[in-house]
């Protein structure tokens, strides 16, 4: 900051304007007066008065904070306002910084903190590392094929900047809520002892129900964002500016379409197609790539707890490319990756909307959580009935260069559909999170197409009990098991299943374990590549609508590099398991499994023992 001040750097007031000088923190005195720019309504910035209270030195590492009062008829009521983050503050006619910090809650005065402009400008000029993967478009990326370019050759295993939003977990174990906790811990946003906090980025939610909103709050609030159920999403560019302007509303469009999420703030300084904004991080993600939009403000909602701007997207433009401690940077010339999510709902007669289309930002944390929230919104809007529901969400997910996989989430819900939180644990959300956070290559989600099939029945068999027809069976013969299955309203039915008992179990007492197919996890090899990870996503369980009889086999198996080799003879197991290398196949206990498809999901487990007789001919 000091360097920039000393050099007397000048910057334009707005796009195309003459460049005013900046004012350094050491020149700022108590009582200095000036003005700020922000949008109170519409898209045009308006002035508001400011008066310096003082300067907090070393408020953040190597960063001061200027405290100001904002006497203004509206701000006297609203006091500190979420969404004003980034509003440029001018003192002595020079740009001093960005309105950015506020007292945690219940402030009774219009007082705010201002991030000095110098570090913001420094961040604005920070280059995007060569080959940084998510952004599509030419500048500022080197052309494909150039050294370090994003278009060819072996790409780095992870983005050059690990960033706050990286998933700290083994591939294949992704979980949205765990990921959110990791990010919150990194941000320190849960530190209740902090009084002066970044003016939270209001997250404008459109097309979402209460449960979905609650889920989004649970995930995003600890990250410094304030979800607000306000609507929006159907962008109209009529009357919207063509470019970002100083003090203009700036949004980060995480989801658009039938469901929308938009983080809202204010542009501090625009120059040459780049915009510095917010005056604080959004998620401190470092290099990132999220769709940006010019915002339109409807109103500043006044609240004793925390006032906030309410607005929507006016014109999608560029991408958020830097999310840093002192500011975010938007580049108008690049496009952030997004992927379409299409959901068809079947089985709900009379539902007002059965087809949903959304565009979800592709980001390693956001995508999975946003997709889960979007699914939850669809369910809430379409199947929000307090009845027993049997549902399945069959999804096709396309990953660029790795084909398409089909995943099925399902359930029988008694008294109403699951909500977004449940969809956070869905296979489709986990697959998106797993793939985008894989450690091998930069993955891209191309699209998601899902069909939510709903029937208002309790389509469930409960395993009432089992009956073993023969307690002693011949090796190589068949054990007959009668399942007693009861349903919610119908009669108990019996189903006989035959389980072939291998000859190698002769002379043994064998425990047969009966379990629903969706609880049976088939063996898989630990993924060594993205292809293997994606393949494993489809092998999470046996057939969902089935019953599975499992028994332990004497032989063991190995799994390695995408291969699963059960029931190995001793010599092969011995040879495959190297004693001089610990990077080879992993051993597992082999199970014999008989899977019997059923017309419904099954609930309940049971066990039975059978004696296997040696056959003497």
């Amino acid at each position, binding site marked *: 900051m000091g360097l920039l001040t000393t050099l007397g750097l000048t910057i334009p007031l707005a796009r195309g304007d003459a460049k005013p000088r900046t004012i350094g923190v050491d020149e700022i005195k108590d009582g200095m007066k000036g003005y700020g720019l922000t949008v109170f309504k519409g898209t045009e910035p308006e002035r508001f008065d400011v008066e310096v209270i003082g300067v907090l030195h070393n408020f953040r590492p190597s960063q001061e904070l200027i405290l100001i009062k904002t006497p203004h008829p509206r701000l006297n009521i609203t006091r500190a306002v979420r969404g004003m983050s980034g509003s440029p503050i001018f003192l002595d006619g020079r740009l001093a910084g960005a309105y950015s910090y506020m007292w945690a809650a219940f402030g009774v005065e219009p007082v705010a903190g201002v991030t000095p402009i110098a570090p913001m400008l420094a961040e604005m000029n920070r280059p995007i590392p060569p080959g940084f993967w998510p952004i599509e478009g030419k500048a500022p990326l080197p052309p494909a094929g150039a050294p370090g370019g994003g278009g060819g050759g072996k790409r780095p295993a992870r983005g050059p900047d690990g960033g706050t939003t990286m998933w700290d977990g083994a591939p294949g174990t992704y979980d949205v809520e765990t990921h959110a906790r990791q990010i919150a811990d990194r941000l320190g946003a849960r530190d209740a002892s902090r009084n002066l906090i970044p003016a939270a980025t209001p997250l404008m939610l459109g097309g979402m129900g209460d449960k979905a909103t609650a889920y989004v709050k649970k995930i995003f609030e600890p990250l410094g964002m304030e979800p607000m159920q306000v609507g929006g999403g159907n962008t109209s560019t009529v009357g919207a500016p063509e470019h970002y302007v100083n003090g203009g509303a700036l949004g980060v469009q995480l989801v658009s379409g039938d469901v929308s999420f938009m983080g809202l703030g204010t542009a501090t300084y625009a120059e040459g197609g780049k915009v510095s904004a917010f005056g604080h991080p959004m998620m401190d993600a470092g290099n990132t790539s999220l769709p940006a939009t010019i915002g339109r403000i409807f109103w500043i909602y006044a609240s004793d707890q925390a006032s906030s701007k309410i607005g929507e997207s006016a014109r999608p433009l560029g991408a958020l490319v830097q999310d840093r401690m002192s500011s975010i940077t938007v580049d108008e010339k690049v496009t952030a990756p997004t992927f379409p999510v299409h959901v068809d709902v079947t089985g709900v007669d009379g539902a007002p909307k059965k087809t949903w289309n959304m565009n979800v930002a592709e980001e390693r944390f956001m995508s999975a959580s946003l997709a889960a929230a979007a699914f939850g919104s669809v369910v809430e809007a379409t199947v929000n009935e307090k009845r027993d529901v049997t549902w399945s969400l069959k999804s096709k997910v396309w990953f660029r260069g790795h084909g398409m996989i089909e995943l099925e989430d399902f359930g029988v819900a008694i008294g109403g559909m699951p909500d977004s939180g449940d969809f956070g644990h869905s296979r489709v959300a986990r697959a998106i999170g797993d793939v985008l956070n894989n450690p091998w290559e930069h993955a891209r989600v191309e699209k998601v197409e899902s069909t939510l099939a709903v029937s208002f029945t309790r389509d469930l068999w409960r395993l009432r009990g089992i009956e073993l027809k023969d307690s002693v069976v011949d090796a190589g013969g068949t054990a007959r098991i009668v399942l007693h299955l009861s349903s919610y309203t119908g009669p108990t039915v019996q189903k006989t299943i035959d389980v072939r008992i291998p000859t190698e179990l002769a002379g043994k007492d064998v425990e047969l374990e009966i379990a629903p197919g969706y609880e049976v996890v088939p063996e898989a090899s630990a993924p060594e590549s993205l292809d293997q990870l994606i393949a494993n996503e489809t092998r999470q369980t046996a057939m969902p609508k089935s019953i599975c009889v499992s028994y332990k086999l004497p032989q063991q198996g190995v799994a390695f590099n995408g291969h699963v080799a059960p029931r190995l003879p*001793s010599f092969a197991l011995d040879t495959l398991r190297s004693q001089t290398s610990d990077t080879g196949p992993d051993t597992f206990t082999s199970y014999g499994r008989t899977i019997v498809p059923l017309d419904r999901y099954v609930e309940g487990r049971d066990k039975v023992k059978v004696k296997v007789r040696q056959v003497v001919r």
Partner: protein
Amino acid sequence: MRFLLVAAACASLGFLASSAHAVGTRTFELDTLERLSGGDLKGVAVGSDGVVRAGFTLGNVPLTDATSVFAALTLADGSVLLGTSPNGKVLKVQGDQVSVFCDTKALAVTSLIQAASGIIYAATMPEGKVFKCTQGKADVFVTLPDASHVWALALDKNKASFYAATGPEGKVFRVEPGGQSSVHYHSDEPHLVSVAVADNGDVYAGSSGKGLLYRITGPGRAAVVYDFPGEEVKSIALWKGTVWAIGNEYGDPPEAPRRSPAAGRAQPGPVSTTKAKPGKGTLFRFDAQGRPERMMHHDDMHYMTLALDEAGVAFVGTGAEGRVYSVNDAHAVTLVADTDERQVGALDVSAQRAFVATSDGAVFHRVVARGGGDAVWTSKVLDAGLRAKFGSLSWRASGVLELSLRSGNSAAPDAAWSGWANPISAPGVVAVQPGRYVQVRARWGRDPKATLGGVTLPFVTDNVRPVVTEVNAAHRGSREGGSATVPASGGEPPKHESVVKVSWKVDNADNDPLRYRVAFRREGQTLWRDALKTDEILTKSEYEWETVALPEGKYRVRVEASDEPSNPPDQVQKHTLESPLVLVDNTPPVLNAVTLAGRKLKARAVDGVGPIARFEIAVDGKPEWRPLAPADGVFDSADEALDADVSAVVPPGSHIVALRAFDAAGNSVVRELESQ
């Protein structure tokens, strides 16, 4: 090549003959296959007759991209294809150059064959595929139905079709040159892991499960030739009407490591490398009439590979220790190669292109020579237990050999060891520095056809003082480690025993014979008195000391250990250690002032050493003794009073009441009274 380390002194005892020379001299005797093995064999073989003679000299070509070799195929140009795991590659070895011939991307290439047409087939697991391989290309030739694993291939006698032994359904498939497959035989076994085709077209297949060797004479027609001990028939070889097969016995496999819930889905980490226990291997030969003959057996290692040379001599590669043994018609077993690796995965013993391919690690050892002037035999490291001086090295040989020694004080030869001393070509003393460990080396440079046997090396270790580390003295029959002399109230009364069992432990680093002397003294006295008879020589580390004639009191026992039986008087080393106090009490206590007024029983028991350990009464001669507490509640002195209400024990009326008192040594006295 390996040096099998002998770390513990006791392990070296197997080499020791009984002392036949000067006092303290012992001898390493290397005169059997086992004793001559375990070191480094270069160009030599060790026979079960205890003779070292010409054997394989192995080259060494490490195989990258593989940890195991499952199969090999020698091509007409002398290059060798190797089927490997865990990346399913077929590697080509030409000279010392290794390249990838083709990549099946399976987990393992388990078998390789070449049809008369030149087509190379590679069997793989786990997806039941057979590939057609050419340089740089592997195309799926056939996927066998219901077969996850293809374990072995064998060409039909027409050299165009082939048979595939598979699992886990225990099937042999016949596969035609066009890729059509049919089940040739379906066994009751889970896996058929070996297959061979006889000149008459009969197919032999070995199973994993019960370890059965089948002869399949046509589709669906088979008979069991032999039920092997153990679980599997790993490999089959045919020669002039005889059938050779190796079988293994593993026992129950160890439990698979418990997998984490994310196993198989999370990114892999290091895999547990729990050492598998080797199985037992057996080689059988079946004559033309199918009569079995056990040719070779190892209890400590299973067999992986079997090959026959042009003369029909069988060679077996092991699944542990990485060795190759041969066995002849006379059942003479010879260790012909001992590699550094764990397993021999493939083997060719033909005269011109022999090789040994190993697993864990994967190394291709071409047999570059058999015997010759470069042949060297090096013994395993021999452990004398202590620093030793070495005597005259001797051996039996047919021909001229040069033998040498080197020594050191670490179990593994390192830079601190001496260099190899100047060799000798006739038995004699080798100038090698004293050391705990020693190795013997023989070179065949002067006579490549020589044989070596009966290597002996006398040695004398430093005489180290024996140290008695622990002396225990307790009455015979007393409970170990418990409060035997103070029984719990209400417990069993102590039993008197006059014999004190004295036992001790000795740290005798040089393992020389010891003599012990036992003495005792009463507490407060200074003179030690011999417990042994005058002419008694005690060499066991225990002694039963009879105390019946001793006055009662507390005693200590002293044990002296001396190595005088094996050392000259001026070199004898001794050490003594005393026991804790032991009570000697062979006199019963005295009961005084015994009265029974009503049901109030009073008495006083006095013992010379004490303490009094128990009062008890019995009524009317019934053998049910009921304990009583002393007047002060604690048995803590040699003089205890009794003042007890026995109405709960003695019923109303007239009864004979017996009162008994014990001292801690189990001596007892009884007094009888009559109750009114």
